[in-house]
């Protein structure tokens, strides 16, 4: 046990940056001042490991390092793929779950479900709860090199998870649903690399657009400021396009979503290809849009006239907070035999 933990400690220290090690040791108050000053960080990492081991016990060090991994990820939330989930069907006392109660229940539930598991919970400055879970099974110790991170905002139904396998997901979902007093954990069809972006999109924490009957006069003000000798001929059309883009996406900063995936299961509709159109089965294909800031680029497409209208396919991304859609044909009652064109509709995707 001692050797394995020592090796684990060495791997963890090798992975972390020296600056992070320094700051974490400073924040951790188990080392005395003299011990801290005797740590010299210019040496190689194996020398640092030896020095640290000589100062304190291995187990205490491991606790420290897991905690610091959590802090590291909290400070850099934009690595790895994050998946969003939604808690469904709250019970009556779901709104009064508070932090200590949630912590104790979650930890005890997870320890009941999995024999060897290591759970660390920390509350972030902006009311988010960060949970780091290292999974083991009935026979092996928890694997700390592949932990799962979970971010949950208490009293909201939103959960964000990274690095979880399909075997671990039902365990996590059971622990979460019971400790937050909901019935079910459902996939929210939103994923991305930047936690801040998908959190802002799902929880709608960006400047929203509200429908108004009397829109403001911003376009006319801009016209008056510019040179009277250069005049735009089609200023009215341009103002219309800008208004349409703002109606769909709003005025201010948009969350930096990176991709949107549309899975099509609609009938083939092109006019050129006769054999494909005659087939009854839907034509399956997947369309993926990627960009450094997808919503901003869609808004620019609409306002510069590259797209003539903002289709509901695009405007449903900010409206419903998803970026994975399945599109099928809406089936009409009686007229489906005669008409070849049916309207596509957006379904919730499969869980």
């Amino acid at each position, binding site marked *: 046990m001692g050797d394995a933990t020592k090796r684990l400690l060495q791997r963890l220290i090798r992975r972390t940056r020296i600056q992070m090690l320094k700051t974490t040791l400073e924040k951790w108050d188990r080392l005395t001042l003299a011990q801290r000053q005797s740590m010299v960080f210019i040496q190689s990492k194996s020398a640092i490991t030896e020095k640290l081991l000589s100062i304190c016990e291995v187990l205490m060090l491991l606790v420290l390092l897991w905690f610091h991994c959590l802090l590291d990820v909290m400070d850099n939330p934009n690595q790895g793929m994050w998946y969003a989930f939604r808690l469904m069907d709250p019970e009556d006392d779901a709104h009064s779950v508070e932090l200590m109660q949630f912590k104790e229940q979650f930890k005890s539930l997870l320890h009941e479900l999995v024999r060897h598991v290591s759970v660390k919970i920390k509350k972030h400055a902006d009311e988010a709860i960060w949970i780091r879970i290292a999974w083991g099974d009935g026979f092996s110790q928890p694997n700390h090199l592949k932990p799962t991170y979970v971010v949950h905002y208490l009293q909201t139904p939103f959960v964000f998870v990274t690095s979880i396998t399909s075997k671990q997901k039902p365990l996590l979902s059971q622990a979460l649903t019971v400790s937050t007093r909901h019935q079910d954990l459902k996939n929210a069809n939103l994923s991305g690399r930047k936690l801040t972006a998908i959190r802002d999109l799902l929880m709608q924490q960006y400047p929203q657009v509200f429908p108004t009957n009397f829109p403001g006069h911003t376009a006319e003000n801009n016209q008056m400021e510019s040179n009277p*000798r250069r005049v735009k*001929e089609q200023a009215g059309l341009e103002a219309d396009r800008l208004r349409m883009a703002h109606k769909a996406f709003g005025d201010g900063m948009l969350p930096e979503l990176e991709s949107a995936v549309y899975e099509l299961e609609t009938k083939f509709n092109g006019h050129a290809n006769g054999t494909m159109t005659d087939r009854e089965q839907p034509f399956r294909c997947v369309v993926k849009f990627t960009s450094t800031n997808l919503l901003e680029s869609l808004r620019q497409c609409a306002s*510069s006239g590259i797209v003539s209208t903002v289709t509901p396919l695009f405007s449903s991304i900010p409206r419903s907070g998803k970026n994975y859609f399945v599109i099928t044909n809406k089936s009409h009652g009686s007229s489906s035999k005669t008409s070849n064109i049916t309207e596509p509709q957006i379904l919730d995707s499969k869980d």
Partner: protein
Amino acid sequence: MSLLQPFNKLPSLNTANILLVENEEQFQQSLADALVEESSVIVNVRLAKSLPVPTENETSRPRIDLVVFIINLTSELSFESAEASLKYLDCGYFLGKVCFLVTNARSVSVPAERLDAVRKLAALFHCPLLFVEDQTADGVASAAERLLTILKVAAGHVPITTSLYMSILAQCTVPPDIDQPSFD
């Protein structure tokens, strides 16, 4: 469907009016700023994405002396939009009051057929074809200077010369072997 007419309004004193038509609406902004700076003549610049121009501006619009189509060679849509807008000009404009401006001709991604197509279009309508560079301030300034030379002739500010005379000298011509494959 209203055509833009060249001579149905009266000119104003010491003024020249130019209409810049560009599908992307990018280069026309900086070009307009450079054109307005000219001091010897009052230059009024009208900007449009494509023709036809809206009829609401009919009363406030002055007589347009020169119509410039800005084509970005890297985009097929730009060329098609310019070609489609040509229908909305009265034929009086094609006697020297239309000019084609082409940007990004040196770009690697431009297929040779598109440049040939633009040249054929300009030659068909007997219009001058100018190649300009739009990314640097120097390029914009020199493009504005060349346009001003043509604009002054089209507005009648240069004595003894009219735009019809100048179009014979400045029009684009295609070499007879333009349809042969080239060596690069």
